């Protein structure tokens, strides 16, 4: 069941392309030249997001092998919405910046359509794990 159609690979490649271009155009210029007095957390956040853009380039060549990158994207956005934005929404303490971020982060839901779930299940859940012990000589 670990088969993926070429059409799906294209959809994945388009996703990687959007990630690489979007981050390449918005975040990378700031990484390359920025104010030295930048707040500490901003530098860390840019390095993290910049990495997603860089590794997405590998995803263009090997969309399936870079699947963990798409999973990182999906999982962090889900965590942020559930653990951070959600409680504030319930409290009614959302500010304008948060609303924008929620809107942007919600686009991560596209990943639910992009990720080949059957392939994921077959290769990341039911497939036997990498070896734990030396194999016996082939018989």
């Amino acid at each position, binding site marked *: 069941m670990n088969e993926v159609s*070429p059409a799906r*690979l294209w959809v994945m490649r388009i996703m990687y392309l959007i990630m690489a271009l979007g981050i390449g155009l918005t975040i990378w210029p700031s990484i390359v030249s920025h104010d*030295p007095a930048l707040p500490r957390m901003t530098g860390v956040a840019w390095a*993290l997001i910049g990495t997603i853009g*860089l590794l997405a380039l590998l995803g263009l060549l*090997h969309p399936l092998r870079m699947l*963990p*990158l798409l999973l990182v994207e999906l999982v*962090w956005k889900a965590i*942020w919405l559930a653990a951070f934005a959600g409680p504030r929404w319930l409290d009614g303490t959302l500010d304008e910046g948060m609303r924008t971020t929620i809107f942007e982060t919600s686009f991560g839901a596209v990943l639910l359509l992009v990720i080949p779930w059957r392939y994921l299940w077959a290769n990341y859940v039911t497939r036997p794990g990498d070896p734990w012990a030396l194999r016996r000589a082939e018989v």
Partner: protein
Amino acid sequence: MAAIADPVPPHRRDDEVPLWRLYVLRAMFLVFVVGGFFVHVPWLLDDPDLTRRGMLDAMLAGLWVLSFLGLRYPLQMLPIFLFEFVWKAIWLLCFGLPQWMAGRVDPQLSEDLMLIGAGPIVFGLIIPWGYVWRHYVKAPAERWR
């Protein structure tokens, strides 16, 4: 519509990386899993800190969640370690070192230089680069049509 599988069949992958290396990778994933438990779980269960926007914490927590899979499939989850290697290298080269060379003295910066700056060295030693080169760079691209 023709269907294809990953061009490198899973059973072929594990033969090229020695068993001790798989254990090194697993040990590192275990450090992630256990260490992350103390870092991320309190944050996830706590009331959100209103002074932070939380995206950074969410990204690091996302890497933590996926590192669980690395215990079972260390080679398949190598992109997580590549992620760690790359983001820490970017931080070191573009943020940490330039500030340090500009003569900034700041205990927070020194701590970050130790903690984040060690990342590229540690992951540089752990990652099986030959395998990464063969499978993530040089391997024929997955099919286009």
